């Protein structure tokens, strides 16, 4: 009987922790290699996609989504999506998706002459479900070894 209670509480806290890990912002240092747009049909993973740009129709089952392709400073690749969160959840109130795409495009670079950026994002990359983290902002930095203190995560 004790095992059930213990299992329940562990599961509960794992869910709470993973919810916060998904929703709170994280920072990655990366080199943007490409930006593109792709039409996505939302299927089983539709929970992990945000909404259409605010002001556009919300009822479509597929739409074009911006992506930002990067190579991280630890040499793995990472692909971010770039979508409005608008007035909905999570409460990032992100409206400037198209502007962000323009900024990201401007910061593209090649391996020989890297332009490092810090990408603030939330969400997970899961290849099995084809879900991508949502980039919230990009900021150019000179040195890939910048030290970042996650103030919001700490206070929250």
């Amino acid at each position, binding site marked *: 009987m004790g095992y059930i209670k213990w299992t329940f509480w562990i599961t509960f806290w794992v869910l709470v922790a993973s919810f916060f890990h998904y929703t709170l912002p994280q920072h990655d240092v990366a080199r943007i290699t490409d930006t593109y747009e792709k039409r996505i049909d939302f299927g089983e993973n539709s929970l992990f996609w945000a*909404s259409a740009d*605010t*002001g556009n129709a*919300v009822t479509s089952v597929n739409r074009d989504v911006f992506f930002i392709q990067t190579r991280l400073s630890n040499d793995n690749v990472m692909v971010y999506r770039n979508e409005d969160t*608008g*007035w*909905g959840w999570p*409460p*990032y*109130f*992100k*409206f*400037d998706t198209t*502007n962000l795409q323009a900024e990201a495009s401007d910061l593209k670079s090649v391996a020989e002459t890297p332009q490092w950026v810090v990408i603030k994002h939330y969400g997970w990359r899961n290849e099995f479900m084809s879900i991508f983290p949502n980039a*919230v*902002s990009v900021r150019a930095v000179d040195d890939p070894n910048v030290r970042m203190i996650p103030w919001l995560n700490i206070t929250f």
Partner: protein
Amino acid sequence: MFALARLVVVGFFVLTIVYICLSLYSRSVRRDKLETEWREGGTEGANIEEFVQKGLEEYDGSLRRKLILGVYVIPIGIVSFIIYATNFM
């Protein structure tokens, strides 16, 4: 803009509930403090109901009660700051 309207309506509803609960709680704390003050004496011989009533009327007009309206102001401030920080910084 429908999503904004929805957020405003839900937010107003939730914040109103918080405001009402906070007001009632604050008033009951004030009432308890007035009763304790009367019991400790030195309140010019008034009886307890009149003393508490007068104290509550003073409280009703006080700044402390008006500050509870901050329950509406603070979330709007936070959301505005997030919008500025995410989109314009």
